[in-house]
C-alpha cells in the first residue's frame, strides 16, 4: 500500500510513518520547507520505501501531483495552539483546500485525525462517551482547538464526499509520549512552574503516541469502514491526581495547587464575570462551558476501535508513562 502522510515530521506523524513502514507500506511524507527531517531519517527506512515531499498544506497545488498513485492519505497535520482564526486557517481552510487539490488523483481513502475534544459531555460525570455521542452544539464557546476540530470534521466530510474519497475519522484523546509534556490542560493549568490541578479525580483520556499511530495505520488499511468514526484512547487511564503525583515523584517536584471539583464551576463563573465586567481586561481563560468540557469526569469508549480495527493499545500506561518520564527527566536528551 502506498501512503501519503501530512504532518509527517510532527510528534504523531513521525510515529505514524514508522508504523506504516514497519508493516511494509511505501510512504510519502509531506514536510514543510523549514521542517527538520532528522526524525524521519532516524526511522532508517529501507531504500525506496520512504520519500519526503517538501510543501506547505496552505499551497496544496504545489505538491498535489506527488499524491498521484497513493492509496491512502493520512492527514495528521494540525495546528494545536493559537488564536481561533489561526487554527481555522490551518485546520479547517487548509484541510478543505488540500482535499479539493487531491480530488481525482486516485486516492481511495482519507484518514482524518480529529480529537475527542469534539464531544459534548452531559456533565453528570457518569456517562461513557462513544462514537454515537453528540458533538458540541455550541463549539464557539469551547476551546479554540476543539472548535476548529469540530468544524474541520464537518468540512472534511463534505470535501471528501465532493472529491469521491472514502473518509475515516479517528478521534484520539490527548496524545502523550517521549518528547511532549504529559501534563495537559486535562490535568490543570500551568502558571509558570506552578500547576493548578483542577479537580483531580477525572480520568485522563490519554493515548500513548505509538498506540495511537497504530490505530491510525489500521484505519487506513482495514476494509469496510468507509464513513466510520473511531475513538482512540488507551485502557485504564490514570486520574489527574495520580498522573501529577507520579510526575512530581519521577520528573520534577512542581509546586502544585489543587482547585477542588466543587470550586471549579464557581471559579469559572467568577472568571467569566470578571472578563465581561472588565471589558476583556483579562481573557476568559476559564468559563463554565470550557470547564465542564475539560474537567468533568468523563470516560471515553474505545470498544469500536478494538472491535472494528482490531486495535489493541500495546503499550500500557505504566510503560508509556515510564518512557515519557524518562525523556522528560532532568539530564535526559
Amino acid at each position, binding site marked *: 500500500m502506498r501512503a501519503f502522510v501530512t504532518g509527517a515530521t510532527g510528534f504523531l506523524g513521525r510515529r505514524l510513518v514508522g508504523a506504516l513502514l514497519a508493516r511494509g507500506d511505501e510512504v510519502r511524507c509531506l514536510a514543510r520547507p523549514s521542517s527538520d527531517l532528522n526524525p524521519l531519517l532516524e526511522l532508517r527506512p529501507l531504500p525506496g520505501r520512504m520519500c519526503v515531499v517538501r510543501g*506547505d498544506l496552505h*499551497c496544496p497545488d504545489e505538491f498535489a501531483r506527488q499524491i498521484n498513485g497513493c492509496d491512502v492519505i493520512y492527514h495528521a497535520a494540525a495546528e494545536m495552539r493559537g488564536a*481561533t*482564526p489561526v487554527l481555522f486557517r490551518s485546520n479547517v481552510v487548509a484541510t478543505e483546500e488540500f482535499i479539493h487539490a487531491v480530488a481525482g488523483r486516485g486516492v481511495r481513502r482519507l484518514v482524518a485525525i480529529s480529537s475527542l475534544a469534539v464531544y459534548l459531555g452531559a456533565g453528570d460525570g457518569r456517562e461513557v462517551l462513544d462514537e454515537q455521542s453528540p458533538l458540541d452544539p455550541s463549539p*464557539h464557546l469551547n476551546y479554540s482547538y476543539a472548535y476548529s476540530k469540530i468544524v474541520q470534521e464537518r468540512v472534511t466530510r463534505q470535501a471528501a464526499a465532493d472529491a469521491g474519497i472514502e473518509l475515516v475519522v479517528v478521534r484520539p484523546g490527548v496524545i502523550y509520549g517521549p518528547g511532549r509534556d504529559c501534563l495537559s490542560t486535562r490535568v490543570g493549568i500551568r502558571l509558570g512552574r506552578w500547576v493548578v490541578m483542577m479537580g483531580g479525580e477525572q480520568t485522563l483520556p490519554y493515548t500513548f503516541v505509538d498506540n495511537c499511530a497504530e490505530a491510525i495505520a489500521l484505519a487506513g488499511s482495514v476494509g469496510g469502514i468507509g464513513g466510520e468514526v473511531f475513538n482512540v484512547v488507551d485502557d485504564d487511564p490514570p486520574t489527574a491526581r495520580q498522573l501529577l503525583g507520579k510526575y512530581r515523584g519521577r520528573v520534577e517536584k512542581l509546586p502544585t495547587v489543587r482547585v477542588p471539583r466543587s470550586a471549579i464551576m464557581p471559579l469559572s463563573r467568577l472568571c467569566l464575570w470578571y472578563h465581561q465586567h472588565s*471589558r476583556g*481586561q483579562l481573557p476568559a481563560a476559564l468559563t463554565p462551558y470550557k470547564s465542564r468540557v475539560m474537567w468533568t469526569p468523563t470516560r471515553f469508549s474505545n470498544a469500536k476501535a478494538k472491535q472494528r480495527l482490531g486495535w489493541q493499545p500495546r503499550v500500557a500506561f505504566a510503560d508509556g508513562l515510564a518512557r515519557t518520564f524518562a525523556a522528560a527527566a532532568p539530564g535526559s536528551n
Partner: protein
Amino acid sequence: MNPPPLRISLIGCGQIADAHLQEIRKIQSAQLLVVCDHHRPLAEQAAARFSAPNVCMELSELLEQHRPDVLHITTPPQTHRSIALAAIQHGVHVYIEKPFSLDAAEAREIVAAGKAAGVQVCVGHDQIFDPIWLALKHDHQCERLGRIVHIESIQGYDLQGQFGKLALNQRDHWVHRLPGGLIQNTLSHGLYKITDFLTDAEPPITAQWRDADEVGFPTELRASFWGKEISANLIFTSQAKPAQRVVRVFGTKQIVEIDFDGQTIRRARRLSLPGAFARLESPARQWMEASRAFWRNAWRFARSDIQYFAGMRELFTRFYASIRGGPAPIRPEEIVRVTALMDRIFACCKSIPSESSPVFAETRPSHVEAAS
C-alpha cells in the same frame, strides 16, 4: 435624541479581525452588521464569537445587500486598494488596517477617491491613540518637554509569535509579497509615532535592512530621518529580546521614554543636586517615578482600564465621530505622507545589496520619485 448606531461591517476574518470585532463591540455608537471572508468557515467563526447577525463571502454581497455605513478592511494589504475603492464607490466609510496600501501611489488613489465621494478614510495607526501616548501628547501640549529635538522609536518583533511563525513557515504568505516584506507589515507602528512629531513632508532618510536571522528575508531595519527641527531613529528588530514597543522623545527640558507594553512613562530631567549627591538624586527620582507608575497602573487595573487595544478603540470612536461630522482622527494627507516615507525607506534599503558593508544608503525626495 441620539442618532442610530452606525452599521459596521468587516472584511477579512483573520487574526487582527478579532481585535477589531472585540473593540467594535465596546462602542455604543456602533452596531456590528456583517462579517465577510472569502473562506466561509472563517467568516462563520467570527460571526459566532462576536455575535455578528450576518455572514457573507463576497464583497459585492456585503456592499449591495447589507449596505453598511462603515467597512473595516482587515484583508492582506494587496487587496486594500480594490476593496476600499469599491466600498467608497458605494458611499461606505472605510477603516483600513495597516499597512494602508502597498505604496504611496495606491494611498493617494484611495484618499482621492474618498474625498471625491465625501466619505471618511482612516488607517489603523492605533498606537498614537493609546492612553500612554495621549499622556505624552498632553505633556507636550503643556510644554513640559520643551522643544522636541529627537525621537527614537523601537519596534520589536517576535518571529516566534503567531504571525511570525506563519511568515517563517509559509514562504508564499502574502507578507512576503509586500514591497517591504514582513517588515512593511509592522514598520508603520514604529514610524507613525515619529511622524506624529516630525512633520516634514520629505525629510532626508538613511536606511538599511538585513536578514540577520538568516530566514531568507529582512528581519532587522534601521532608519534615520533628518527633519528641519527634529531628527529621528527608527529601529525594527526581531533579534533583541524581549520584543519592545518603546519610544524615547528628546526634548530641551526632558527626555521621556514611553513603554507601550509596560504602560509607563519615564522622565529624565536635569539633576539639581551637586556632585556626588546627584548620584543619589537620580535613582531616587527613578524610584519615585516607578512607584507612581505602579500605583497609576494599579488604579487603572482596578478600573478595568488596562486594555491591550485601548488605542484601537479610541481611534474607532474618533473615526465614527468623524463620520457624524467631527474632525478626522488621522488626516488623509498624513496617511499618504507616512506611506510615502515607508516607500522611501524600502527604496533606500533595496538600493544596497544585503551583502555589502553596513554603510547606510541615503535617499532624498528626488531619488524616491524615480524609485517609485
